[in-house]
């Protein structure tokens, strides 16, 4: 409606003026305006005249169009060109051995043993400290990994292709809970399991996937799972069940020793988080599709290495912007408490980057205690996330919000502008290598990573009429 036919006002700023409008019986929506994050005035003012909106439209359109499908399983060393023995991918932003936290060091040690690059843990530690190994973030190789996220050449990885974007993402297979490599455990039980995953689990799943009529549609499976109570980060029970259900006829048909198939099915059935990894690869394929749009403030990566929390924006290329990784505020398993927790770790925040996980908390009433107690808290959490996202997903919906699309495309400008940080659900790793998961909860990303990223975007932005 033209304003000359009547005004409906949103007011930000002086309350007196909003009251004056109300006294004239005009319709007024009061914005709960608060000063932006400290030090951001200049960069917000510069971005006000930049072409961010059009760039964000382009970036988020690529996320909306993304259609990740599970096309198979491969071997990391075959798929990642420069992943030679002695090179290890890891979660989060770049980090050297000397700065690594316990779980990440433990996982490196385990992977070195797995690749036969060290005779024992002490040998692995010495070699790592002496600079014999090379460390690269998973995100810089089209890959993601939960918790420590360590990937070495022999590991099997899910292959997820996004045909509309022409891009591919990889993620390791989930090892289950307890004493596992991703939490920094490296004893023989861990190494034996990883070897079994390469020798038995991956071939069984590969054969089953090959029998499907079409590549497995992860976007559809995630959409289903959201309506079954998963948020795809801390809860993957529905998605794991759907994955196994989809593969089951093929698993019963493939020509593998029956005991191998039974072991594989038992392994998947006993791990509610088995879908986390293909789900992460799906999110990575979606987020990568949106990367590289000049001027866009859309967040395309949030990842932690146990020491730092890193952010990348679509419009700032390959640069990482970091702040200290936080301690997770959550619930602990019996016998553990906050003093045992390692700071936030893992690439699994790729789910939040695509509007799942903590962003979609309202979809997962079964785990609302992680975010403070009640289903209404969960609704409020997701509701708040729409304040910082550019769009709503065309594909993923939240039943409890009347099937509203999940908040999609975190706009770094609005994070800084409103001071609202993305809601992140996550597991808690013990600070010592090898003990494993000690809890789960909610963690707050460091604002400075977002303000620095936005500053860099403002520096590179040009004025656009």
């Amino acid at each position: 409606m033209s304003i000359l036919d009547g005004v409906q006002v949103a007011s930000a700023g002086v309350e007196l003026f909003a009251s004056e409008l109300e006294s004239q019986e005009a319709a007024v929506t009061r914005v709960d305006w608060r000063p932006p994050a400290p030090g951001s005035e200049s960069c917000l003012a510069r971005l006000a005249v930049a072409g961010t909106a059009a760039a964000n439209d382009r970036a988020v359109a690529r996320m909306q169009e993304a259609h990740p499908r599970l096309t198979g399983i491969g071997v990391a060393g075959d798929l990642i060109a420069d992943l030679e023995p002695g090179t290890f991918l890891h979660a989060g932003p770049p980090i050297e051995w000397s700065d690594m936290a316990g779980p990440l060091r433990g996982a490196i040690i385990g992977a070195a043993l797995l690749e036969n690059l060290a005779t024992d843990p002490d040998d692995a530690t010495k070699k790592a400290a002496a600079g014999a190994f090379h460390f690269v973030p998973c995100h810089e190789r089209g890959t993601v990994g939960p918790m420590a996220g360590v990937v070495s050449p022999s590991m099997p990885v899910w292959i997820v292709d996004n045909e509309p974007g022409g891009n591919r993402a990889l993620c390791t297979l989930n090892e289950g809970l307890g004493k596992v490599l991703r939490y920094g455990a490296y004893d023989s039980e861990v190494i034996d399991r990883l070897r079994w995953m390469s020798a038995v689990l991956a071939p069984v799943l590969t054969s089953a996937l090959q029998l499907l009529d079409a590549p497995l549609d992860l976007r559809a499976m995630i959409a289903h799972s959201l309506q079954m109570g998963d948020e795809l980060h801390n809860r993957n029970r529905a998605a794991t069940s759907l994955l196994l259900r989809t593969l089951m006829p093929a698993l019963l048909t493939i020509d593998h020793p029956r005991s191998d198939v039974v072991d594989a099915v038992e392994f998947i059935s006993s791990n509610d988080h088995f879908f986390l990894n293909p789900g992460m690869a799906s999110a990575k394929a979606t987020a990568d599709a949106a990367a590289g749009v000049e001027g866009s403030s859309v967040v395309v990566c949030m990842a932690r290495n146990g020491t730092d929390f890193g952010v990348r924006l679509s419009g700032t290329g390959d640069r990482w912007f970091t702040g200290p990784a936080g301690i997770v505020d959550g619930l602990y398993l019996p016998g553990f408490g906050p003093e045992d927790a390692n700071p936030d770790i893992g690439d699994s925040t790729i789910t939040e980057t695509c509007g799942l996980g903590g962003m979609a908390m309202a979809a997962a009433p079964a785990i609302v205690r992680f975010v403070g107690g009640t289903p209404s808290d969960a609704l409020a959490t997701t509701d708040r996330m729409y304040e910082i996202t550019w769009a709503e997903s065309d594909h993923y919906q939240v039943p409890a919000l009347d099937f509203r699309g999940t908040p999609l495309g975190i706009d770094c400008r609005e994070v800084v502008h409103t001071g609202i940080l993305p809601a992140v659900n996550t597991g808690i790793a013990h600070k010592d290598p090898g003990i494993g998961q000690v809890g789960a909860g909610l963690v707050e990303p460091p604002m400075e990573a977002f303000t620095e990223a936005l500053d860099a975007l403002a520096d590179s932005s040009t004025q656009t009429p």
Partner: protein
Amino acid sequence: MSSRRIVVERGTYHDSVTLMLASRDAEETEGIVFAAAASATPVNLELLTGRGFELPADLVPDDLLIAIEGVNDAALDRAAAAIEALLSARPRPAGDTAQAAPRSLRSAAGRDPDLNLAFVSVPGRYAAYEVAGALEAGLNVFCFSDGVSLEAEVVLKRRAAAAGLLLMGPDCGTAIVSGVGLGFANVVRRGPVGIVGASGTGTQEICCLLDAAGVGISHAIGVGGRDLSGPVGGLMTLAGIQLLADDPATEIICVVSKPPDPSVTERVLSALTAAAKPAVVALLGADDLGDERMVATLEAAAAKAAELAGGLVAFHEPTVEVPTPGAVAGLFAGGTLCAEAGAIVAASGFDARFVDFGDDEMTAGRAHPMIDPSLRNDAVARAALAREIGVIVLDVVLGHGAHPDPASELARVIRDALEQRDGDLTIIVTVCGTAGDPQGLSSQIHALEAAGALVTRSAASAGRLAVDAGGGG
């Protein structure tokens, strides 16, 4: 002979209830005999094949199928649109009351598609971003905040113009849009005169003088003081003229500004010619009026607009009985009122010391003197102490947004000042207000007169009185 259509959306999931609702809506469309929005499951494929639909061979259960059968293509189009509408609908959560207030103008616009105007009054250093966000969200903007750079104003106004939106401001003090006063605005009757103003208090005074003359306002669109500068090029003045030209309620268009960049004046005059409605152009303080539509004062603008509307601006002007020679101090809350009165005093050769307390530099970090007149009132008390000052000229601006009772505190200051000076000081106050203003026009005037001030209704009149009080030119 009926038509059939199949639409396939790959990998698109909706819950089965939503699909049933969409199918039902489509089937209720006129001319449709069968409609289904369904997942491509084997059962559904069999059903659709059985009804004679030809399906692609490579469907998987995650694909969405829309199958429609109807009397002709137009009916199929309607049914397809009905399905698309239901599937793409994104309803808002029920029970909105529990929802937290929006944290940005963009978010507010996203929640309520009926919003059409953003009011921005955040601290100036944040204003550009708020304006940009509001424009991105498709809102017209009234930006009270100052502190936006000229460069940013140019970019933002170009964007607004390109999007067909109005950006009133930055540093826009007043507007009246469809009867609603924004910022500082007097309560005026509705009527035929539409105003586009680059001057806040200038626009207010014209509105008040017209109201007193029985002539009403259709809309008063503010554009901010820099709109007619060369760099901005009058973008929003031109947009405002266009809106008023198209507005059936507006019969006369009045433009108010300081003298613009000459190239801009040309454009404004052409736009008014194209609007084909009687026009008044007040270029305040201009020496050269090359066009019969142009006037140089607020007072002349109001008189001319009233005349075009068949009214007459007239009010009681007090007279000076005993001159009090000396310098003339002007202490104003309204910038344009200050300039108009000051020009008259200066032109008569007086030592004119006029200060605009509403200037950006004076308001940084504090409320505008129309809201908080304490700084200006203190200055009145100080000026009265200066023996060389013989006349003090002031303004009181009423209306929405202004102080609820500006006269009472000022009256006390005036009374003290006059007592102290014992007959050698004249205080003149121009009151910019209407009978409808919430402060009560007559009680405000009465309080000031009772304190000993000469009260008038226009800045020009106040200037002339000051000249008289100072002992003539």
